[in-house]
């Protein structure tokens, strides 16, 4: 017998290529064939959309038929544009120079909003930080028209502001008769340059604004205005609510000199946006005597922020329609954790690892599959919540701040990405602890709890701000659709505003996911299955 010559049996089949796409396909099949998981994904979509669309507060007072007519600025953003304007027309180029010698203010102590014509009691002296008086060149007296202004403010020194969102600092310090401020605006075509000076002889350029589409004849002159002051009920509790009160500012200006324009033109006073976010009627106006102008105004020139704390309207951002994401996130996190922990419980992990022994690749395939599935379902659900939500809001009389298509896309895809990242985090922690309860609890407590504590006002504002920076809940920042303005005081709190910029917040969440994935991969290599 020639036993030694018998060749060992080899299968005639060629060994299959160990491709990553096959691994992905295997994991996708595992996910797809568990009916409960697919149903749960659809449940998550339904929860996100149902809560997101039911959240609209119908304005009961007017049966949904009174959507506020909030003006929009040149950039399409919602703006406040109410001030007292002492103006005359300017055709062509020119420059205006004034000296401001005083800025004083009054604040209503009663709180609440005042409509036009309502007489207010209880005014006490008090200048709010962003009360403004100075000079302005505006395309027209229509609300929301392009402008550039040089102004003295309550406690932020001289400012050049233009087109509602832009703000440049000039000379610091308060204005008084002893230390007046000289302001100058020069128009040359579409470009307006602002200068300031402490003595009227040495001038410094503050900034230059290019106002696209400025007409040949513009309005120029002097202004005074003073924004609503917001007082939160508890300074330390976010979202505890608060009251807004209108305020008044009075500026005294002299040494008015005009170069260009009509010689000997008459000054006329006009209330731009009468009654919007402030006093109107008898309370405001101007006096002219011996070349000195005393102008009293109320309102604000600047962007409207979400939450309605700097406008008389009840405004919100599109984040209002994303509250359902919290529920969808819980469902997705549960599925993602089960995607790995059930393999351990049922012993399937041993078959899986026998079939694809390279464990790092297996974890990558699992993470990619669950990440893509949650991203697709999440993005679709959020897109419906945002797009239909804005429409439903408008229908119900709830004003949602307008957002650009690019921002909308970022909010929709970003929130989908946040859901995907949370799911991958749950998968990674599930691979580390191998227990569903621990994985789900860890992710829910780490992502949801800080957010909920911030929104419901359980934590003091300082603590909730800190936790929204360092915890995985920082990822919710991607939902912020309206920027925060340092020149507008108001309530910047979740769900509309977050302490970190949108992508920085998402990056924090990414960091947690990366660490968890790394740990999971390391332990998967190191431990027996």
């Amino acid at each position, binding site marked *: 017998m020639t036993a030694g010559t018998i060749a060992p049996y080899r299968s005639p089949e060629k060994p299959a290529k160990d491709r990553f796409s096959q691994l992905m396909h295997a994991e996708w099949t595992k996910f797809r064939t568990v009916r409960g998981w697919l149903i749960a994904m659809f449940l998550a979509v339904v929860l996100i959309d149902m*809560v997101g669309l*039911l*959240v*609209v*507060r*119908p*304005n*009961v007072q007017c049966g949904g038929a009174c959507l506020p007519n909030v003006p929009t600025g040149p950039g399409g953003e919602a703006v406040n544009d109410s001030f007292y304007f002492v103006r005359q027309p300017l055709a062509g180029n020119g420059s205006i120079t004034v000296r401001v010698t005083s800025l004083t203010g009054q604040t209503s102590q009663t709180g609440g909003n005042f409509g036009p014509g309502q007489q207010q009691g209880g005014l006490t002296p008090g200048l709010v930080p962003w009360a403004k008086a100075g000079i302005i060149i505006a395309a027209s007296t229509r609300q929301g028209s392009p402008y550039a202004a040089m102004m003295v403010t309550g406690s932020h020194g001289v400012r050049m502001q233009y087109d509602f969102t832009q703000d440049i600092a000039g000379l610091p310090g308060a204005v008084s008769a002893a230390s007046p401020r000289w302001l100058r605006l020069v128009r040359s075509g579409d470009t307006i340059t602002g200068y300031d000076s402490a003595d009227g002889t040495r001038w410094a350029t503050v900034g230059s604004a290019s106002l696209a589409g400025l007409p040949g004849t513009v309005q120029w002159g002097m202004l005074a205005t003073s924004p609503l002051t917001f*007082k*939160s009920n*508890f*300074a*330390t*509790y976010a979202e505890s609510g608060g009251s807004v009160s209108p305020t008044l500012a009075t500026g005294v200006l002299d040494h008015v000199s005009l170069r260009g324009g009509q010689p000997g033109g008459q000054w006329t006073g006009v209330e731009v946006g009468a009654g919007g976010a402030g006093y109107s009627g008898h309370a405001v106006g101007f006096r002219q005597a011996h070349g000195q102008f005393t102008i009293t105004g109320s309102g604000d020139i600047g962007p409207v922020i979400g939450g309605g704390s700097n406008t008389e309207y009840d405004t919100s951002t599109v984040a209002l329609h994303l*509250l359902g994401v*919290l*529920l969808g996130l*819980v*469902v997705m*996190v*549960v599925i993602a*954790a*089960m995607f790995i*922990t059930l393999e351990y*419980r049922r012993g399937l992990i041993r078959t899986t690892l026998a079939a694809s022994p390279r464990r790092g690749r297996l974890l990558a395939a699992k993470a990619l599959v669950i990440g893509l599935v949650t991203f697709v379902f999440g993005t679709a659900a959020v897109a419906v919540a945002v797009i239909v939500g804005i429409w439903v809001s408008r229908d119900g009389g709830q004003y949602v701040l307008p957002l650009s298509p690019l921002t909308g896309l970022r909010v929709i895809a970003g929130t989908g990405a946040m859901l995907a990242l949370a799911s991958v985090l749950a998968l990674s922690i599930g691979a580390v602890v191998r*227990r*569903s*309860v*621990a*994985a*789900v*609890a860890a992710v*829910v*407590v780490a992502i*949801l*709890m800080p957010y*909920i*504590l911030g*929104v*419901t006002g*359980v*934590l*003091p504002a*300082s*603590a909730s701000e*800190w936790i929204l920076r360092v915890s995985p809940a920082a990822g919710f920042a991607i939902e912020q659709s309206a920027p925060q303005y340092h020149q507008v005081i108001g309530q910047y709190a979740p769900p509309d505003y977050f302490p970190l910029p949108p992508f920085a917040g998402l990056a924090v969440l990414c960091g947690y996911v990366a660490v968890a994935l790394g740990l999971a991969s390391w332990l998967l290599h190191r431990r027996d299955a």
Partner: protein
Amino acid sequence: MSQALTIARHRLPHSAAPAWESFGDALRAEWTKMRTMPGTAWILAGICALTVAVSAGTDAATKCTIGGACAADTTRLTLTGIEVGQALVAVLAVLAITGEYSTGMIRTTFAAMPRRSVVLAAKASVLTCLVLPAAVVAVAGSLAAGWLILPGNGFTAVRGFALVSLAHGPTVRAAVGSVLYLALIGLLSLAIATMVRDSAVATGSVLGLLYVAPIASLLLAGQPVWQRRVQRYAPVNSGLTIEDTTGLRHLPIGPWGGLGVLAIWAAASLLTAALALRLRDA
């Protein structure tokens, strides 16, 4: 023939025993199970440590500067950690029942003790006996943190703030109530987990209820009547009113009333869970 009859007449001694006797056995069995579960000690330690840490951290982060408006409720402030501690209580409760379902132990349990509601009652009792001492330590630690930290941050008696101490009646009420609150959250979670059975789904449901339910009142801002109803009668919102010591007149529901609402929720869901255990196959 006669031998078979003799065997048929022979019965197990326990099946004839009255319910209260078998309850003692069930208690002992559940106590052994909970005691020997690998995570129990860690979770109990976590309840204490995490609650106190979060409370102390919040106290340290909250300053009351002169001239500024401050959160007036120092007791509630220093009990913030309960918000986190309740998650671990819920996890313990979920593990107490779903662990048996995931390993199939539940079939052995019911074979040994066919009275299923007695098993649930025993689980609930053992869970409460474990949660209560941990909650006492957690609440006492949180109060101690407030007593030590808050006066240094500007919350002094001179400025009209109630000092967090046991001489202050409402603080004692809030402390006792918070301990009971944690125990009730444990019972509610146990009941929900018994109905759901799967550990991951149960954890998601319970934590979803604890953390997402509070925003329900935000959703209803346009309907004040319904908003008030939710604030009064939803389980978690109402239960935490036990921590309030100021502005009681503006609360949607009184402190003990709020805790009572949570107790009714816990009792009702335990009854439903007992019914579900009885009607379904294990």
